[in-house]
């Protein structure tokens, strides 16, 4: 009995966190179009969603931005992490490298917009992709550096001792030992990019809105069950990603 009482706040917290999400998921299967009353089960809104050209275009744009920025951020972030860990002792440099992940999105967005207009760059998907690479890289390098700080540097010395050149050592020893961290960082960068709104809103061109911008412009005229269906799909995708990251981190632990 006492145990149950102690657990109550725990379950209440979960209830608080997940009730809104549960409502959205349930309402996405609502047959009617009222967001407030239940009119029977239906998957019609998912069909509606698939047929919506604006949403499909927004999703395509988001996937292009997320995939491209994740690829760039993963490569650059990993190199940044290795460089910071192995070739400098500067604490300022490593603090600065994490800044884009920490500073308010709004500041980064305004800064990027100012930068783009200063260099007279056109706005479009490419400018969002570059903007997302900036904070994605900061996240990847932070995750990879955590992994690096636990890594045994004698592994690299052992590789050199056994006759491997520095390049072979990096490719055959350093990268594989960092792989779980790199993958976790990449997944993080991807999921953050998919639902990023503020920076995309500032740096996207008027003809290429990403999915969050599309959704925002739709909900301004009231939430439709279509949005609920879309939210449910996104929820499923990001939940899968979280599970994947957890699995990878567990792999990381067992390797160490």
């Amino acid at each position, binding site marked *: 009995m006492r145990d149950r009482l102690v657990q109550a706040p725990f379950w209440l917290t979960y209830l608080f966190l997940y009730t809104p999400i549960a409502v959205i998921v349930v309402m996405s299967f609502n047959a009617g179009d009222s967001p407030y009353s239940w009119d029977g089960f239906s998957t019609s809104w998912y069909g509606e969603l698939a047929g919506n050209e604006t949403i499909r275009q927004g999703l395509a744009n988001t996937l292009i931005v997320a995939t491209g920025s994740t690829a760039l951020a993963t490569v650059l972030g990993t190199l940044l992490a290795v460089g910071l860990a192995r070739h400098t002792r500067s604490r300022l440099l490593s603090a600065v490298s994490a800044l884009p992940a920490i500073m308010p999105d709004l500041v980064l967005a305004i800064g990027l917009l100012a930068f783009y207009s200063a260099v007279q760059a056109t706005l479009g998907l490419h400018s969002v992709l570059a903007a997302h690479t900036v904070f994605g890289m900061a996240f990847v390098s932070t995750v990879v550096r955590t992994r690096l700080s636990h890594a045994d540097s*004698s592994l690299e010395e052992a590789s050199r001792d056994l006759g491997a050149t520095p390049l072979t050592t990096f490719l055959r*020893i350093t990268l594989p030992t960092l792989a779980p961290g790199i993958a976790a960082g990449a997944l993080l960068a991807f999921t953050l990019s998919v639902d990023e709104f503020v920076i995309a809103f500032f740096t996207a061109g008027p003809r290429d809105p990403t999915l969050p911008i599309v959704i925002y412009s739709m909900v301004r005229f009231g939430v439709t069950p279509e949005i609920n269906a879309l939210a449910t799909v996104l929820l499923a995708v990001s939940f899968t990603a979280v599970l994947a990251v957890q699995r990878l981190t567990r792999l990381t632990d067992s390797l160490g």
Partner: protein
Amino acid sequence: MTLVSVEGVTRRFGDVTALDDLSLEVRQGEFFALLGPSGCGKTTLLRVLAGFDLPDSGAVTLEGEDLLRLPAHRRPVNLMFQSYALFPHMTVEKNIAYGLEREGLPRAEIRQRVGEVLETIGLTSAARRRPAQLSGGQRQRVALARAIVKRPRLLLLDEPLSALDKKVRAEMQLELKRLQHEAGITFLVVTHDQEEAMSLADRIAVLNHGKVEQIDTPVALYQRPRTRFVADFVGANNLFTGTLRENGVEIPGLGLLPCKAPSEPSADRPVDLAVRPENVRLAPGPLRGTVLDVSFYGGTSRVAVGVEGREEPVLVNVSGAVTVLTGGHVELAWDPEDAVLIPGG
């Protein structure tokens, strides 16, 4: 025949001199040990030999060729790391094959040599396992196999037995000697553990503050230490500081203690007198004192005797159990031949 020659090597880290004009030679085919307390420079020398560190001055040659010019991955020298440094993402087999693959050897030869060395270390059945699935002793065997399969001219071993528990240690000790003999590779082991050095090596260099104190066989090092540091560091010893006279060593506060007559008549100079605990007998002799403590080790007992006029107790080893009790009065004696004279200051 000399394999490795280290000549006047100095290495400083800021204010700390890790290696101080150090010179030594390692002979072809021998089992050589660098022994010293932590901070004596032995690990720095190991890293210089492996190619992970460069000295500020001095020369290192291997079979007459300048070793310092070669980067680590081009030296015919391999190192067995204290942490073993096995690649966690590779199987035992792949770990061992790694060095051979870097030489660009044909696959068939790699497979054959890996198979042979796995058999030598008795881990053929574990070839497909990962390092995390092995015991400490097995990991060490793999680390050793990975290094010797390259057939280096010189194999460096960093504290090879320190991470093993006592029983596995004894096993690996024999194994290391057997492998060194079979492979015919020159071994250089670095250790702070004098028992490890004594039991493994043909010759030992005792290092202190970046300098060589003495290079000798284990027996000579134990029986005829040439410096006070060696006498104190290698095995237990009773050290007395005094002045050499014609018929013994005069110790302030203790009187004249027996020792062998010096080969050259050079009386009245300052010396240290070293007597091993096992050479001291509880018998009528020049010293008398009170038993402070008796420790029983099974085969032997160690008696600590407090002698008036001396701060440290005199240690005495007695075989088997002893009859003396703490607080009892005893006399101490030794044969003059068992007392070693060390020039001192």
